[in-house]
């Protein structure tokens, strides 16, 4: 019985951790983008661009979202962060952004999921690192870890 109580206490503490901090109503509808829109965004950007491909239904994307928010906080002055939401619904996408406070950078909606393929990516999540002018520096397939993200962000700023 004592063990059960202790277990429940631990579960209560853990369940109190995390949670949504932004109201979904505060998140704007994501603008729909095409491959051409993103190509012109990359070509005209005055800064290197990190483009993360995500979806609200993608469990690994949920897992790396806090890391991207941290990366944005550290590099927002030097690097432009762009999110591409693929094969998703607007409501779920806005819920995802609210849950992870990820509305701190720009996101585009790609309902058919064609944009990543145009840049050589497949699957979700993906993280593209583009130099100024839109030249691809590195493409990471799958969940990205802190060290890899930090090295490639550092590479873009040099």
């Amino acid at each position, binding site marked *: 019985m004592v063990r059960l109580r202790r277990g429940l206490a631990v579960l209560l503490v853990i*369940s109190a951790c995390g949670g949504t901090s932004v109201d979904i109503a505060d998140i704007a509808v994501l603008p729909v983008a095409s491959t051409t829109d993103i190509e012109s965004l990359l070509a005209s950007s005055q800064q290197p661009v990190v483009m993360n491909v995500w979806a609200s239904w993608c469990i*690994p994307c949920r897992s790396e979202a806090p890391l991207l928010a941290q990366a944005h906080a550290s590099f927002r002055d030097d690097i432009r962060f762009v999110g591409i939401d693929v094969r998703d619904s607007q409501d779920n996408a806005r819920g995802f952004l609210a849950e992870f406070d990820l509305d701190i950078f720009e996101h585009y909606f790609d309902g058919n999921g064609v944009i990543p393929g145009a840049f050589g990516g497949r699957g979700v999540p993906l993280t593209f690192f583009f130099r100024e002018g839109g030249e691809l520096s590195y493409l990471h397939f799958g969940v990205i870890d802190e060290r890899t993200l930090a*090295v490639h962000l550092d590479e873009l700023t*040099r």
Partner: protein
Amino acid sequence: MEFSLLGAALLGVAAVYGVIYWEAARGNAADCSKDLWDVSLGAATAGLVVGRLAAMIIAGTNPLTEPGDILIVRSGVDTGWAAVGALVALAVISRRETVLVAGGLAAAALAGLGAWEAGCLVRDTCHGTVTDLPWGISLGGSEITRHPVGIYTALLFFVAALAVMWLKRRTQNPLMVGGVTLAAAGSVRLVTEPMRSALGGRPTLWYLTAVFLGVGVVVVAQYRQRVEP
């Protein structure tokens, strides 16, 4: 799917297995009733789970509402909490033989950490901060050279593992061996951490704690050796 992380983990596990049995074959095994291989697997698994849960909670993700995230180990494992989890699991599994088991596993643990770090060659993640040193390595398509910090760390762990093997044969004092191992692991991390790229806070405090705790254990072990010869 991308299996390079699994490859690095397997290298670490293989190194632990190899060192345990190599030491046993050379008569350098711990004088305890526990199977060191079983204990090491249990402690490593517990450390991985605790470290992953800690990383999730620190990042603001609730493990109860997002249980699937626990499996996404690549997203991060908190080093400090993982070490605490592994050490607590080792103590729980080995019970009254904790010191003997810790001493017996010391060299294998350091070799395992070294092999895990060497796994950066499989994962292509050895790159650290920028350097002009001639042995610097570059990311694909880049001219910027960086410290091969994963290799530095692996080599230092292997050297520490050899030193601990030598110490085990000389002292026959598992408490001292455990303390030296803890201090060595913390020191290797502490020395190499500034050469790693990081986004936010570094686990320097954890590494310093390991060094001081290890030195403290060594002092206690020496004192006990004098008092109880």
